[in-house]
């Protein structure tokens, strides 16, 4: 019965091979169809998710931006009112000081805007702020005086190796400014606005103006 065996074994091989080819093709086609469905689903999902989340994100961001900026605006408003008042009443000596304070507030507003406009920080805002607070290497420089300090510090740090000075300074600088930016929004004692507030209070006292204005300034949170 060897011919049966031979026939069986040959035919089973043949059949098996044919099946295998067909199965393989079917499997391939199936896989590619399913991959296509997966991709289509993914594309549809992205669109739907984005559409849904855009408005939600917009609302969150709007509140954050408005809250961060309203105090800056109030300082600017107070200082501009004082500026025009001093102008009308001949307190010319105070004008340059007020203008300096306005510049500091303007600079701060720009920093806050840059910070809000950077996409990376958004999802990890709390995390970044935490880690920056832990670092504790921040010297916020409200009016330029402390920038000199930072500058001086850099020269001392970078003095040892001339070649690397520029690069490491650059890194320190950018890290520093990142810290300042975040700190401006969180640390009430060291922020630019705290400095502006102190200066404005002095200015109002110097000008001998009403205590009501002081009251408004004192109540500004930053």
């Amino acid at each position, binding site marked *: 019965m060897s011919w049966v065996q031979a026939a069986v074994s040959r035919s089973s091989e043949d059949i098996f091979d044919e099946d295998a080819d067909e199965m393989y093709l079917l499997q391939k086609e199936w896989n590619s169809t399913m991959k296509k469905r997966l991709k289509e689903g993914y594309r549809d999902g992205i669109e739907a998710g984005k559409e849904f989340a855009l408005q939600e*994100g917009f609302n969150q961001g709007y509140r954050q931006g408005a809250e961060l900026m309203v105090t800056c605006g109030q300082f600017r408003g107070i200082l501009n009112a004082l500026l025009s008042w001093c102008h009308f009443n001949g307190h010319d000596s105070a004008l340059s000081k007020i203008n300096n304070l306005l510049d500091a507030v303007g600079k701060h507003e720009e920093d806050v805007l840059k910070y809000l406009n950077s996409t990376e920080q958004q999802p990890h805002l709390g995390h970044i702020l935490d880690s920056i607070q832990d670092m504790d290497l921040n010297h916020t420089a409200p009016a330029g005086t402390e920038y000199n300090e930072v500058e001086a510090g850099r020269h001392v740090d970078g003095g040892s190796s001339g070649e690397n000075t520029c690069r490491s300074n650059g890194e320190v600088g950018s890290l520093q400014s990142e810290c300042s930016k975040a700190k401006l929004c969180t640390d009430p004692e060291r922020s630019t606005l705290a400095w502006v507030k102190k200066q404005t209070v002095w200015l109002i006292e110097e000008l001998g103006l009403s205590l009501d204005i002081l009251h408004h300034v004192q109540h500004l949170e930053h």
Partner: protein
Amino acid sequence: MAAATVRRDMFEEIVMAEERFHGEGYQEGYAEGSHVGVVEGRRYGSLLGAKIGSEIGFYLGFALTWQCLLQKCTDEKNNKKIRALDSLIRMIRKFPYEDPTYDKLQEDLEKIRGKFKQVCSMLNVQSDFRIGTESSSLTF
């Protein structure tokens, strides 16, 4: 019976597979899209919120300060200015500037802007304040 059920289940599974794969992709895409959407939306929102917050804060600080500065002298001319300032301050205090879902946000903002201009002309102060540097996008 059992065999028939199994066969039907298999058949359904094959038919449903396309839908299932589409669904799986959809879920994955939805999560990714939500993340992207929140980040993008937040960025646009925060910039607009910052712009309006800054503007409203400015009007409020300005009006409150002038209100105090004018308290000393109470002739008729000053009283008029103070009344205008009072009205501007009331409008600002009522304005939910921090609420992006407030449907009259733009409408109320325009009214406050108009009132502010009126107050400025009464005070003889220029109303086109420029803030920060030239590049600032917050000029209004």
